[in-house]
């Protein structure tokens, strides 16, 4: 037990120290984790052999990440990406693998080994690239989207690659491999099943020994189960759990969903990352999307961090310094080849300047899938063990260099492009939207008006029943407690232009306004107040606009009554406007005297002013209109009788 605690302590320590420092230095969190790993692994030697095992476990972070990416991606959007997914992704994998394999053939002699090396180095690091793109807010740019398409294709391409590698076995290596397999025990099929299963599928498989047709049937069945189950079963399930109002149960259910799908995929020899991604896409339209996102997010972050640390810790400095030149040359060579191909593809698919560079620089590394394929190839006698060690270093080093390339993009590419004239702005299709907290009668009307005006809205409510009703009439709404910062993040508060506070709880509404103003001072906050006291509290908390919920309705009712008793409608309208203006002035005036901690009846200054203002109000409604000095009454006042004599000069 203490051993486990010590390990956890070391890893957390390294992360907590290195990541904030790296971020402060502008290096990004990924490089911070990698440096932390190098520090506790090869440099200090605190952690050692267990890192490899830990890495397989941590790779589950990638599965979680793809689930989250899927949640952000609606099916329509995925469909729109199809040309890029197949075109860009397919060409990238084929061209990179081909080029590297050709070079490998020249250097190694065995074409089989060369092909395997080409395939495993053609893959990029989903973990590093997506994490960095998200961190820098580049996911929604054209370059980010293109990069994502390629990563997604690679994820799918791993499956046929795993099938291909055993065929490539080199006879001379088979003998050695047989020995190695004996020592390594299981592991081959576990890793082969994907980077996500922490040995989950090691001994289990539903498809061993099935014929081709039966296998295809099972696979299709599994995918259909994910899609249909995700669409039809998860909603009632989550709704049921949400009604229990236990947050941890919801979190557990979210994790269960992801783990379950990963397990299912592993059982049928599919990529768990792909399966959860699919589930994410299916749930992208669900009202529980933001809640799922904010529940899964911390797990993903921790596991990915752990994964990056293990990559850093796994760098074998002995081999590295022994063959320093070879490793460096190979790393730079691989990245140059991949970068060159990406650059060409970017041009072919007409990416614009900034996106083009982002695409080229972000995907030039080898990735975690490479580790998986490498281990599998070594076990299958396709790649000799010494070469395997070397390649493993190349992969790790290229991953280590990727954050550096991102820094280069930030510091060298972007400034130059920004100063260039006639550079069209990046297309970011996530526009500033409006978040509405509270989907009750108040929030609903606000939302309908905004939607009618073509403004994108995100509605949050903590009543699953409310959300359900809104969704039935086609309103984008999500289940969750709007006062939770992580949920606000998931709802896109960073990009929001305005926020409507329409929640039922008076105190939480004030707290929310205060929090929003403190964290997002530029965000415009429109708040619903229950009464004047609440309105003042909201105003003090930082609400830009605070409105009493029944004031306007009452005024309308008063006006309707005046018309009913025979007053001329336009006279009523003028009076209403005058009254409203007078009331607003009063509201602003009394705010200066208002003190929440002082009881109303004891606040003498306030009481006195209220009396004075009420008297003035009576004057508005009093009979003698000609004496009124209200602006609206002043309008359309006829000139005095006999005034024409003055004009006739």
């Amino acid at each position, binding site marked *: 037990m203490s051993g486990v605690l010590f390990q956890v302590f070391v890893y957390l320590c390294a992360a907590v120290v290195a990541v904030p420092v790296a971020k402060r230095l502008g290096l990004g969190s990924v490089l911070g984790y990698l440096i932390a790993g190098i520090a506790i692994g090869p440099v200090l030697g605190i952690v050692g052999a267990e890192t490899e095992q830990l890495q397989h476990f941590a790779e589950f972070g990638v599965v979680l990440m793809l689930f989250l990416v899927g949640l952000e991606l609606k099916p329509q959007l995925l469909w729109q990406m199809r040309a890029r997914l197949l075109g860009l992704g397919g060409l990238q994998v084929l061209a990179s693998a081909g080029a590297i394999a050709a070079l490998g053939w020249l250097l190694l002699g065995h074409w089989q080994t060369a092909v395997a090396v080409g395939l495993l180095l053609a893959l990029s690091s989903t973990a590093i690239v997506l994490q960095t793109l998200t961190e820098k807010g580049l996911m929604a740019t054209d370059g980010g989207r293109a990069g994502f398409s390629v990563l997604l294709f690679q994820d799918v391409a791993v499956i046929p690659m795993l099938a291909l590698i055993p065929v490539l076995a080199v006879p001379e290596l088979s003998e050695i491999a047989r020995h190695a397999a004996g020592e390594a025990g299981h592991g081959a099929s576990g890793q082969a099943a994907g980077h996500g299963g922490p040995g989950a599928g090691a001994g289990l498989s539903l498809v061993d020994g099935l014929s081709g047709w039966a296998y295809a049937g099972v696979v299709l069945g599994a995918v259909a189960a994910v899609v249909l189950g995700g669409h039809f079963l998860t909603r009632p399930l989550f709704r049921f759990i949400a009604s229990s109002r236990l947050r941890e149960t919801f979190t557990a259910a979210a994790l269960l969903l992801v783990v379950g799908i990963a397990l299912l995929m592993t059982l049928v020899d599919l990529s768990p990352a792909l399966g959860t991604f699919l589930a994410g896409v299916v749930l992208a339209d669900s009202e529980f999307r933001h809640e799922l996102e904010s529940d899964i997010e911390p797990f993903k972050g921790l596991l990915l961090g752990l994964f990056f640390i293990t990559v850093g810790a796994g760098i074998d400095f002995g081999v590295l310094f022994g063959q320093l030149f070879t490793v460096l040359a190979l790393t730079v060579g691989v990245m140059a080849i991949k970068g060159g191909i990406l650059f060409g593809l970017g041009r072919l698919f007409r990416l614009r300047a900034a996106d083009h560079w982002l695409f080229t620089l972000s995907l030039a590394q080898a990735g975690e899938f490479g580790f998986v394929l490498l281990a599998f190839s070594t076990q299958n006698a396709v790649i000799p063990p010494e070469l395997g060690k070397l390649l493993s270093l190349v992969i790790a080093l290229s991953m280590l260099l990727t954050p550096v390339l991102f820094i280069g993009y930030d510091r060298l590419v972007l400034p130059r492009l920004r100063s260039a004239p006639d550079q069209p702005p990046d297309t970011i299709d996530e526009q500033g939207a409006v978040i509405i907290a509270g989907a009750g009668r108040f929030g609903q009307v606000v939302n309908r008006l905004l939607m009618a005006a073509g403004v994108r809205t995100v509605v949050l409510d903590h009543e699953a029943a409310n959300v359900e009703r809104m969704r039935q009439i086609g309103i984008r709404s999500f289940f969750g407690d709007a006062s939770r910062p992580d949920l606000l993040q998931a709802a896109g508060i960073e990009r929001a232009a305005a926020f409507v506070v329409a929640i039922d709880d008076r105190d939480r509404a004030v707290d929310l306004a205060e929090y929003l103003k403190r964290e997002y001072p530029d965000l415009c906050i429109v708040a619903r107040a229950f009464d004047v006291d609440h309105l003042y509290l909201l105003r003090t908390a930082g609400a830009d606009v605070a409105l009493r919920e029944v004031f306007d309705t009452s005024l309308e009712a008063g006006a309707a009554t005046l018309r009913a008793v025979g007053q001329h409608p336009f006279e009523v309208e003028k009076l209403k*406007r005058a009254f409203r*203006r007078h009331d607003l002035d009063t509201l602003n005036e009394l705010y200066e005297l208002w003190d929440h901690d002082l009881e109303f009846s004891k606040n003498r200054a306030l009481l006195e002013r209220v009396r004075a203002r009420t008297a003035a109000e009576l004057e508005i409604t009093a009979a003698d209109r000609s004496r009124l000095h209200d*602006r*609206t009454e*002043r*309008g*359309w*006042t006829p*000139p*005095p009788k006999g*005034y024409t004599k*003055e*004009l006739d000069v």
Partner: protein
Amino acid sequence: MSSDPAAGAAAGAPARRILVLFAHPSLTRSEANRPLLTAARALDGVTCVDLYAEYPAFEIDIDREQQRLRAHDVICFQHPLYWYSTPAILKEWQDLVLEHGFAYGAGGTALHGKVFFCACTAGGPEAAYCAEGYNHFTIRELLQPLEQTAYLCGMTYLPPFALFGARTAVQEGRIDAHVADWVRLLTALRDGTLDIARAEPLPRLNADLDALLAGTDPTAACPVEDGA
């Protein structure tokens, strides 16, 4: 306050402050008025008020508007021509702001000596705005209620600065020249380099803008190159 706005280029005279009261109920669809407004906004000494933006419910703040009038020497209504007159909010503005005792009548001298004119855009071609055309009257004749309003308020009335065929001005490439004229006009009014006495009887301000600016020092008068 400039007591003699009709005087021509007076070297060293304080710059006139110009108030452009802009009225367009559908600014997003405007092709001609929007570039004019943008150009006016960029000029020093010109205050532009988008009336529909400021009073979307027609609740015009009379005190604020009267204060604005007091603070400026040249008042301009900028608007598309709607049924041979201004859009509704400018009429509302007149009805409310030009009060007895402020703009006219006993003690109503707040506007005395100021200059007033309209900058309007008309859909019909210039040929339509004459006795023989389908609109039967010149644009100056059609705007006579405003002219008389100006006189009653003791203001100097200048003929309209008008753009004809406004719906096709952009596609026919006429808008840039009109905006340039607009900038020249406002600049000259501000700097006191417009020949106001000569402008007063004209049918339109921009019929021959060069002539109105000619008698003055060209370097001070027109930053925009004239002629050609």
